[in-house]
């Protein structure tokens, strides 16, 4: 059979083989090697506190990632957004999975939530950079992949559509990571409310041109049907629970209310099984591939292009990137110098301005203080005068009083004298009389 060749030398018709060669065994070899090596998966969960993220993680992987001894972020109140990661090794059927859960406590919890997404963006970029450096190294045998492969974003079940915070976050992160939006605490809503809410969210996502994770197209009929079913139910409304309850003799995982039991694994109650199947059983590899081929490549090309164009590496990299090529005939050192000079002059100007403002303020304050001092002086003088006037008055009165006293005493003395005289004359008369 003659192979037909095109210009590029590519075979158009697949060749039929005469006998059994054996490369059909390749998938098995890959499979065995992968099983030996184990898998890694990094999952990030983002959402306001109290939406059931930790419970959902525990339910998804049937482990106690957050247990009473190691309480999850929900039991702490965070002032700023922090990014924490926890690793757990899960084994099932001989296959082991190193699962890294990245949690973001404090997201959207404070009064002012501007830029609460910044720590998360920084974390993701950090991981990409780590991988880039590891890739560019000379010796790259052990290359740990800690890039974030999937981000589960929890939407509050308000029933009204996306909040401004949701839109902002997703707009900034849809080019860096696979976003899968979920409706948290889905048992808040009746089925009709849930449908309406899902439609509103999808409308909002399209309106703001947010690119959430798209399921890949396949040729397989069966898979297409399944994918279509998932797509119709986006965003997935989930309930999480790790408590087991008896219902009609069956033991199910669910939440017990006075009016019934919400079954986590029941497709009619919530979309948890769909999420679990999609995330773990069918699309985990695809998530990793998209992260590697799309998001990581975006980051890489952007970073390397920035370096080559400017001749200056704006992101301080610790690894050994290849020496960047310079354009415009300017050496990178000179460019750096110029930048530094600009920066310094800018700082100087700012410093001057601030000093001016400071001086002005100081002057004002001094003026105010002087005024109040004068005021106080005046008041003091006045009070002193009052006091003196009173004092003088009192003095006058005292003197008057003294004078009166003296006069009175003088009078008394005269009276006394008179009395004495009278008594003496009386005595004299008496004596005379006697004689």
């Amino acid at each position, binding site marked *: 059979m003659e192979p037909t060749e095109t210009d590029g030398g590519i075979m158009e018709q697949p060749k039929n083989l005469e006998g059994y060669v054996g490369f059909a065994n390749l998938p098995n070899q890959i499979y065995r090697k992968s099983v030996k090596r184990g898998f890694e998966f990094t999952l990030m969960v983002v959402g306001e506190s109290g939406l059931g993220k930790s419970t959902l993680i525990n339910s998804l992987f049937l482990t106690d990632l957050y247990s009473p001894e190691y309480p999850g972020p929900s039991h702490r109140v965070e002032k700023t957004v922090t990014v924490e990661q926890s690793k757990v090794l899960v084994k099932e059927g001989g296959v082991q999975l190193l699962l890294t859960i990245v949690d973001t406590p404090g997201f959207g919890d404070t009064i*002012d939530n501007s830029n609460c997404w910044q720590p998360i963006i920084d974390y993701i970029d950090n991981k990409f950079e780590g991988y880039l450096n590891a890739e560019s190294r000379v010796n790259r045998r052990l290359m740990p992949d800690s890039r974030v492969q999937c981000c589960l974003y929890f939407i509050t079940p308000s029933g009204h559509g996306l909040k401004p915070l949701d839109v902002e976050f997703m707009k900034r992160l849809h080019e860096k990571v696979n976003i899968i939006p979920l409706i948290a605490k889905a048992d808040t809503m009746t*089925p009709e409310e849930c449908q309406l809410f899902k439609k509103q969210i999808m409308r909002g996502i399209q309106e703001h041109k947010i690119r959430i994770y798209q399921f890949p197209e396949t040729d397989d009929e069966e898979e297409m049907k399944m994918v279509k079913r998932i797509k119709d139910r986006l965003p997935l409304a989930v309930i999480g629970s790790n408590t087991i309850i008896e219902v009609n003799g069956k033991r199910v995982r669910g939440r017990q209310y006075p009016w019934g039991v919400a079954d986590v694994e029941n497709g009619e109650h919530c979309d948890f099984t769909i999420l679990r199947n999609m995330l773990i059983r069918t699309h985990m590899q695809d998530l990793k591939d998209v992260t590697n081929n799309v998001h990581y490549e975006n980051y890489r090309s952007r970073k390397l292009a920035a370096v080559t164009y400017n001749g200056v590496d704006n992101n301080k990299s610790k690894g050994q990137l290849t020496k960047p090529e310079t354009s415009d005939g300017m050496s990178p050192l000179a460019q750096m110098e110029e930048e530094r000079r600009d920066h310094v002059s800018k700082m100087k100007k700012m410093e001057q301005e601030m000093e001016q403002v400071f001086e002005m303020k100081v002057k004002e304050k001094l003026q105010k203080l002087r005024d109040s001092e004068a005021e106080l002086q005046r008041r003091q003088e006045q009070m002193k005068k009052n006091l003196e006037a009173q004092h003088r008055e009192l003095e006058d009165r005292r003197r008057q009083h003294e004078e009166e006293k003296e006069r009175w005493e003088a009078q008394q003395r005269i009276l006394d004298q008179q009395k004495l005289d009278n008594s003496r004359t009386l005595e004299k008369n008496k004596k005379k009389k006697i004689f």
Partner: protein
Amino acid sequence: MHKKTMEDYVPNVSKASGPGVDFSYVGIDAILEQMRRKAMKQGFELNIMVVGQSGLGKSTLMNTLFKSKVSRKSVQATAQEKIPKTIEIKSISHDIEEKGVRMKLTVIDTPGFGDQINNENCWRPIMKFINDQYEAYLQEEININRKKRIPDSRVHCCIYFIPPTGHCLRPLDVEFMRRLSKVVNIVPVIAKADTLTLEERDFFKKKIREELRANGIDVYPQKEFDEDAEDRMINEKIREMIPFAVVGSDQEYQVNGRRLLGRKTKWGTIEVENIAHCEFAYLRDLLIRTHMQNIKDITSSIHYEMYRVRRLNENNTVVAHANGMPEHHLESEEKFDSSCAASRF
């Protein structure tokens, strides 16, 4: 021989009271009947403000409380609910009547509260609104020729909706309640309580009560305004139950042969008025059946008076000259007025 009557034995009894009548009955208690008749003629006014993030079921709860479509959403039918960029204050008034008693109910809604990315000072427009209402009433009061019945637009009660996270109060909730518990009666409720199981609900309530105590937030019924032991007993029982975990609904479903307000989910139907399911009935009793008058009294005699004292003290000269009165007369007027207000209906 004439029949001996009471009058023969006790000649001082007035002839007006006929024979066989209990002459020790004066008829003071008939004043209750007179007051009732007057109140029914005048009608009541009640102003309730609902505050909370969008999507917590505020409008639905108002509709459920008053069993009619009184909320903003029912009156202004908007095609799609958009979150406003700033906080707006919208008040809708309705005249409702039940068994001959008329009530003018005003529901004040605050769309946009807590919905932005940056929610600093989101309580300011609300505090301003409440103080404006007090101001309007004050202006009417200090008028020289004032109306017989001043229209009362003061906010009597503010229902604050706490989202059912199940963990603790958010900083926004704490800030808001701290500032507003000083100017208005706050009744906190846990919204959409059908999200929480009973254990989670109890835990959440305990956490909330602790946090309210730790932050010194005094919600209605306030401990310091209990008048006597009986009041205290009743209010203690209520205080152990706040915040009420409520579920609102304005749709009826068939349950056990009866038509009840509720929410129907795939795993069961939540009955709104069933106290085993949620505490809506307690909230309704508190707000309407037992404590409505008390809420209005506390608003007019305590919150309003505090505002009035503050305003009159800062604007002492201005007000005095407006009324042609010298300053020292104003001081004694104040004392007189506050004792008057305490007994005001």
